[in-house]
Every structure is written in C-alpha cells, then in structure tokens.
C-alpha cells in the first residue's frame, strides 16, 4: 500500500529558482525520508528526518516535518539543471516492521 502522497505530481521551474515538494502520509511514523531517482535508475537517499524533529538541512536541501498534520516538505534552493529527477518521500512505521513505504513521487524539471 502507498503511504505517502506527494504534491505536486510534476513541477517545472527555471534554473536558480527554489523548488518545493510536499508529502502527506496516513499513519504514525518513526521517520520520513526523501529519495531522488534519475530516469531509469535506482533511488538515492537524500535526507532522513525523525518523528521528533521538525526541520533538517543538508546542503541545498531543507526538509520540514509536521507530525500533527502528517505532512512533510522538501525544499531545494537555487535549483540546477542537474536537479532534474523524480523525488519520493518514504515513511517508516512507528512500530514493528523494518520497512519503508514510498509515495508516488514528484517529477521535477529544471529548465536552463
């Protein structure tokens, strides 16, 4: 079953602009993660935010988590053409299984 739902499904912006993607989920989580996928390739882990954290930074990435709203956002600042990819959020359940459930993803296109 799909836990996370990303919004928007597709996003096209100009190079240098900021890109914001949102993720909503349904059940209690241990952590939420963001991954990137270049076309036809495997996924690459970007950042993990734990359920007791509200914000996290990594380079040009900023992730927020609002557990009361069951939502997260990924901000990519000063976008580059190389950021063109699909971005997925994934959630790990609060209890029990060591598994990761992914959303449908946001297709990000950075125009030069």
């Amino acid at each position, binding site marked *: 079953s799909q836990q996370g739902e990303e919004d928007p499904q597709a996003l096209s912006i100009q190079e240098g602009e900021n890109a914001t993607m949102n993720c909503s989920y349904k059940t209690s989580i241990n952590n939420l993660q963001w991954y990137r996928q270049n076309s036809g390739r*495997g*996924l690459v882990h970007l950042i993990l935010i734990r359920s007791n954290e509200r914000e996290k930074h990594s380079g040009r990435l900023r992730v927020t988590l609002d557990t009361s709203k069951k939502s997260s956002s990924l901000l990519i600042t000063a976008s580059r053409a190389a950021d063109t990819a699909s971005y997925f959020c994934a959630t790990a359940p609060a209890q029990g299984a*060591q*598994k990761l459930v992914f959303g449908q993803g946001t297709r990000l296109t950075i125009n030069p």
Partner: protein
Amino acid sequence: SQTIHQWPATLVQPVGSPLSLECTVEGTSNPNLYWYRQAAGRGLQLLFYSVGIGQISSEVPQNLSASRPQDRQFILSSKKLLLSDSGFYLCAWSPFYSTEAFFGQGTRLTVV
C-alpha cells in the same frame, strides 16, 4: 564500503515462463533486504522485505515469491510470469538498525 548488486539490468520474458532475479549485498552483515516494483511513471510498491535468513514478509498477494538463502542474498521468483508482472524491479538494503535504504540499479522486466 557497502555495495549492492542487482542483475540483470533488462529482461524480456514470455508469458508463462519462470523468473529469477538476484540481489546481493557486500560489506555489511544482517542487512534488511527489500524488493520493490515500479510501474512506469509511478511510485514504488513494496513487494517483499526480509530482516534475516529465511524471514520473508509479503506485502502484496501476487504471482511472485521471494527467498533469502544467505544473509546477503535476496531472490525474487515467479513460476509463471503474467503480462502484469512487467515493470521496473528494485532491490534495496538497509542496516539492521535502520530503514535508510540503498538501492540497486534495477531490472527492467518486460513480459511479452
């Protein structure tokens, strides 16, 4: 350092034929192992995950099965492929204490 190997990269199989996709991880012990399937332009569907040898959890009832004969080997199988089994199959691992996942490069399976 840890590496994950998944093969083959592409596969074309006739309907009704068997399937065996193999995934191995190097450089770590007792990893969590995962099989995902991704339909074109869609998110990842968790098929199976394993926290130890012989321990397989199935997420979706289907035509597929998984086995973990060795600590760092995860195999996805089918006795008779269906057209609907076509897709992009991704193997991933995470440390036993985490859900931060590292993905293989995927196998694109086309059932004809």
